[in-house]
Structure formats: C-alpha cells, structure tokens
C-alpha cells in the first residue's frame, strides 16, 4: 500500500508492505502500518463502521470512506494508493484541514419551528418526514465536497460556494414540515447554489446513498427560481417572512451565477 506522507503541502507516497487478514478494510491496513512501521502516520477515524464520516480519503483516486473499503475489492498484487482528500489543505499525511465546512455551517440560519398544535403536541406524518430523513442520513464525511469540481479545482470559489453537503442541509431545513425560516435568498446569494452544474459527482460518492442532486439540489434550484422570478411568490414571501434572511434581493438577476 502506498500512503501519502508529509507535513503541510510537501510530501510523497511511501510504500509499505504488511500482511492482511480476511475481511480487512483499507483503514485496518493503515492501522497495521501505523502499529508496525509508521507510528506517527496521521489518520482520522472514529467508528470504523461507516457511521461517523471521519476516515475520508482517496483510494486509487476514488473518494471513499477507508472503513468501508474492503481489501477484497482489489486484485491480489494490485497497487493500492491512499491519498488525502484533495479539496482541503493538507495538515499531515491523510489528515486535511476541513474547517471550511465548519465555517460554512455557521452561516446557515437555524431551524425555527411553527407553533405547536392546540393540544401542545407536534404532529408530522411519516410520508412527510421521509424525504427530510434522507438528508439527515448525512454523516458529514465531506466526500461530496471533495469531489465537487466547483471547489475541487477552483479555490477562488470557496468564499461564495458552500458545496453539496450544505445544499443537503439547506434542503433538509427548507423541506422540514415544521420549519418557518426563509433561506431562499441566502441560498442563491450566499451559498452559491447557481454554481452547481448538476453533474452528480456528489451523488455518486455519497456513502449514505443520499440522492444529493435529484432530491436536494434540483428541488432547491426550483424553489429559488420560483421565489426569484415569480413576483407574486416574491411579494408573499416578503409579507410572511419571519426569519433572519437577507433583505430584498440585492443582486440583480443578470448577475446570477450561470446555471441558476
């Protein structure tokens, strides 16, 4: 197995040879290398069961969770190369600086529920929560962020683009049966939904099989467009607004990102 070793941006792939046992995943091999050859090899992990989203890396170029990538997927003798995710700055070995995501999370207006039913209870029906529960499956592995070409190849887009993880989050809030906060202007102007060209790269790498493009991004785009260009919908939202979103659209439609 060849593993990226290095501090900061300088480094190289270093080859290690260790025996493997039945059923091992890539993360097991990384741990074995750590225990026997490279005690300071930096790697993030927690649950080792595909539930926490810590051990994201690029295995033979494909963004994966190391804990869910079986060694049996590779042919005997096949070279396996493990690299850190590319979209975020390198810290050391397989560990990258993912603070971009935590900073973006701070900019999302929170959940704001409508009043309870008259008897003090809250009622939601399973068929109404199903689609939002799909978004809540997100384990924040940030593989969708890693693979999204808007930021993977364009550092300059990062300030104005939040990425698929946060479109999923925003869709979850927008489609929550109880939520009353209005984020549509913000989604367009601040989170950069329009940059997305719906190439579905994010959907393909999601280890939780969330249909990011079809179920989150496209419906959000439709909502933004409706709100933006339908004057009656726009006016109604002005009146009903309860949440801390941006003031009236400050960016004229001509300056929309290309594909909104």
């Amino acid at each position, binding site marked *: 197995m060849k593993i990226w070793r290095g*501090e900061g941006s300088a480094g190289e792939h270093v080859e290690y040879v260790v025996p493997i*046992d*039945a*059923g*091992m*995943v890539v993360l*097991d091999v990384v741990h074995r290398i*750590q*225990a*026997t050859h490279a*005690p*300071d*090899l*930096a*790697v*993030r*992990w*927690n*649950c*080792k*069961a*595909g*539930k*926490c*989203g*810590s051990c994201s890396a690029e295995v033979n170029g494909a963004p994966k969770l190391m804990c*869910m990538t*079986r060694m049996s997927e590779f042919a005997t003798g096949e070279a396996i190369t493990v690299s850190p995710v590319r979209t975020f700055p390198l*810290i*050391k*070995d397989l*560990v990258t*600086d*993912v603070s971009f995501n*935590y900073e973006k*999370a*701070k900019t*999302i207006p*929170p*959940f704001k*529920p409508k009043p309870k039913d008259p008897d003090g*209870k*809250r*009622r*939601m*029906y*399973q068929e109404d*929560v199903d689609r*939002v*529960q799909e978004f*809540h*499956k*997100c*384990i*924040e592995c940030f593989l969708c962020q890693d693979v999204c070409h808007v930021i993977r190849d364009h550092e300059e887009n990062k300030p104005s683009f939040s990425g698929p993880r946060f479109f999923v989050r925003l869709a979850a*809030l927008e489609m*929550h049966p*109880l*939520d009353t906060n209005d984020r549509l202007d913000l989604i367009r102007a601040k989170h950069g939904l329009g940059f997305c060209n719906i190439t579905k790269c994010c959907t393909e790498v999601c280890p939780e099989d969330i249909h990011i493009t079809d179920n989150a991004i496209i419906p959000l785009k439709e909502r933004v467009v409706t709100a933006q260009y339908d004057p009656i919908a726009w006016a109604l939202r002005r009146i009903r607004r309860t949440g801390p979103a941006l003031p009236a659209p400050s960016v004229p439609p001509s300056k929309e990102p290309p594909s909104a």
Partner: protein
Amino acid sequence: MAEINTATYDVVVVGAGGAGLRAAIEAHGAGAKTAVVCKSLLGKAHTVMAEGGIAAALGNVWQEDNWKVHFRDTMRGGKLLNNWRMAQLHAQEAPDRVLELEEWGALFDRTKDGLILQRDFGGHRYARLAHVGDRTGLEMIRTLQDHLVAQGIDVFMECTVRHLLTDGGRVAGAIAYWRQSGALLLFQAKAVVLATGGVGKAWKVTSNSWEYTGDGMAMALEAGADLIDMEMTQFHPTGMIWPPSVRGLLVTEGVRGDGGTLRNASGERFMFKYIPEFFRAETADNEAEADRWFEDKRNNRRTPDLLPRDEVARAINSEVKAGRGTEHGGVFLDIATRRPADYIKRRLPSMYHQFKELADVDITKEQMEIGPTLHYIMGGIRVDPDTAAATIPGLYAAGEVAAGMHGANRLGGNSLSDLLVFGRRAGEAAAEYVKGASTVRIDDAQVDAFAKRLTEPFERPGDENPYAIHADLQETMHDLVGIIRKKEELEEALAQLERLRSRASRVRVTGTRRYNPGWHLALDLENLIGMAEVVARSALLRTESRGGHTREDFPKADPDWGTKNVVTRKRDGRLALTTEPIPAVPPELRELIGEDKPQEMVATGEPAVIGGKE
C-alpha cells in the same frame, strides 16, 4: 512557567457527545461564557454510533407507560444498585428532553397519528425508544451540534484535555494539547464539565472508538474526585464476530426489539433456558407467548430475547461454552425468518448495510453471527444526582463518564436519555456555580509539571512501541477482566497491568508534535492502564455477581453487597478502595420497584472463547 496560550471561560465542557453538547447549550443559555473541547471533529463523538433509540416514557405507543414504569425498569435492570434519585430524575425528565430535540429540528420516526414512534428494547416493559431507523445517535448529535453552532458557542476541535488544574482543592481549569499542531493550551475556568465517555478501548473486543480511553475518569481521580462502581462493565450481547476485522462492532438491540431472536447452532431459541427468577414473572416462558407479546403487551409477557443485556450476554457465553455455538464461536441472531425483507430494510437500514458491506451477509435472507462486545461502563465519577457535581468543587460530570444512574447494568436506550437529562443538569448547575465562585488562580508549578509530562515521551530514553503495549493491554483485559471473572485472574491482571505501566513509562515517540498518533496513544496509555487497574481492583473487591460484574467464584448476588458502592479515591498518588452505603430508596419509590431482590445463581462457567481461537 512554560509559554502556553491561555483561554479563559466560566465553564469548559470536555467532550462533544450528547452530554457535552447538551451541557454546553444549557450553560451558555444560563449566561456562562462556555467552551466545548473535543478530541475529534465536531459531530464525530461516540454518540453518533448509537443506533436503537432514546428511552423516554412518552406513552405514544402504549398509553400505560409513564415515568414510574420507566423508573422501575431502570432500577430492576440495574439490579437495584442504581442511585434512585438519578433513576427518578431520568425517568421523569427524559420525555421533555426528547421533545426538546424535536423543537431543535430532530425528525424521529412517526406513529400513524403523527407522534414520535417508540420501539421495544431489552428490559423495558413498553415500547419506549424514540428512534430514527437504526441511526438515532446521528440524529441526536447532529441536532445538538447544529443547535450549539447556532448559539455561537466556542468549540475547540481536535484538542485533547489531559489534566485538570486545581486551586486549593477546587477546579481551576485544564491543560490540553492541539492534535493538529501539538501545541499546548491552558483553559482557565471556574467550572469544568466532564463528558468524555468511557474506557472501552482497554478491551480487545469492543464497540468503542479510539476516543474511549477513560480520560475523564482518570483526570477526575487525579484531581481528587471519587469514582464508584468501576467493576460494572457492560458487555453488549450482540457484536459482530466475523470477519475478524469487524469483531466487536455493534449490532443494535433494535434487531431483537423489532422481532429478531437468538438461536444456537442447532437453531434452538436458547434464551428460554436462561430466564432468571428476578425477571420470571414478566418474561414469556414459551415461544408462542413471546411472539404474541410484540403485538399484545397486555395479555403476554416479554420475550426472553429482550432480557437486560447482562443476562443475555451471559446466556450467550454459556451456550458457546457448552459447545452449542457457531463456527466462529458465537450464536445466531435471526430476523430474516421472522420479518419481511422490506420491513427489515426500513427499520434497520444501517445493520443491513453494515452486514452486506463488511461481512457479505444479507440479513434479510441469512442469520447474523454475533457475540458479546465490551460496550459501556456503568461506573465512573461519583456525582450529586440533582446537579451532576463531582466530589470536588467546580467539577461536574455527565453521561457515561458519570456513575450511579444505571447501577449494575444499563438498559438499552437509557444512555441517550441519560446524556440529555444529566447533560442539561450539569450545564445548569455549572453555570449557577460560577456565578458565586471567586476567580480561580492558575498554579504555575502545576502547569509546568503537567506540561513536562505531556512532552516527556519525545525526550526520554526507551524503545517501547505504544501500539504494542496497547494491544497487550487489550489482551489482558479481554482474557482476565472479561465477562466472567475470578480472583486468581484478577490478581494476575493486576500483575500484568503493573508490567504494562512500567513498559509504558519507557515509550519513546518518534516524529514531530504535529498530528502524531503515536504520541497521542503514548499519553492515552497512562489513562487506559490507570482505569483498567481501577476496574480490576474494584472487581476483586466486589465478591458477588451482579449486573455487569460476574464472579465465577461468587456466583450469587449478595444482598449485603446490594447496598454498597465500591468507591475509589487517589490520595498521595495511591489508590484507596472502600465501600460505602448506597442511599436508601424512599418507601414510596420502593413500592414501584417491587420487593424481590436478585439473589439466585447466575449462569457463569468459564468464559467462553467468543469469536473462536486465533
């Protein structure tokens, strides 16, 4: 004094799982300047791995359910060793804490009437666990995380708190290191809330992640606080056992809650042979009644598949020991023949995924092979039931790191509710405490001594590999302080721990201080070995079998021991163990529990070689 940056807060919360996040939200809300410090990235703490649900007597599925029944189930599940007041507060407040999560955006599975759906779990008389499929912990941690971020609370991620600082016997803050840079950091704070979880990584077969190194308990003990019940460790009956790389990985009790059953190699539903007297009146003694119970709880008794975890884990051990285990030394967990495939996939999606991806097993068609895995420690920091205050001023503890709530055995689902109920109480009490507390002074000599210990592994002579010592520790605890214990083995464990401690002092770390897991583990070893010793010493002292502590040489529950906590203190660098009486349950609550006490022999026998020989 060494050059170290200092961050000053009123309340520092250590740990960002359910208890830590809930405590921070409460402390911040009460006006205290609050920070959360966590070893991993935010949202990755152990809570994220919780599967089955949050126990709370909401009464949405069975109207008969209420806090009194939940209290009774918790006390009986804990073999009456629980702190009654904690069990009472927990049962009373859990429903409000669950509903509060809904106010913050959580989306639980729903009943037909649109309310929060509740599922069956071991030891709970009624379907009681609010859940989201089998990923309840993820929903809970993300809800708390998002709410915390929205409040603007400071979070120090990938920052390991290593020692508590004290000022004349009260807490003054903590010293930590940044994992990314290796730089040290001081927290000056009047109150510290420990929410660091357990110590599962001392065992070889465990459902716990690398974070579970006993940090909170070790720091509290070092600072002068009491630990109790450290011999009470929970082996979850259903961990994966094959292939070897996934051994110990949790299989939710929800599989049995949703209709799954345990079978031995010949297909027998063996749990009917292991119904203890203590639970006989409420447990079905035949398969037909057990199966009817899922639909009709009024006229049938609960299936023995859903006895409390300690009972089920011991039964599995006995079956394997008797030669009725599976090829890989476990037993079968079968839901494939009992529920339709689409139901299984809807109710247990991550179990389906986990077995399919990691073991090539389709749980809608085949049985799962499972065995016990170290999952939880009921023991921990002794706390005041109402305020979660530890026994030194300014120190609070909530969640797995605290003790008392679960007695000798925790019921499934009671952990997530524990985090919320006592996380909130700890945050509230800490914020209240700091209002009246004078400014704390940082003792430079103390800081210098701790700073030296933190960086020592880079400088000292020696050639020991921290990973090898850790692996040997896990073998020791697995072999000698496992599911079934006896005097000679516990004494041998203590001797081995002493050798491991000596080896750990000769660990030399290579590389730089930047994100160096070898260094981190070298520091963790001290806590792991220290807490392993406390577990082994407490287990040696308690000469009875109760809940998560089973002594082959003392196979009965002893009524006298049933009134005592094992208390551990550290004085002048030495451990001192004593027993102290458990607060007596007031008569009106005593009535709720029922008078009979667990006394009969438990199934012991030699510990089986679960998972087969290697």
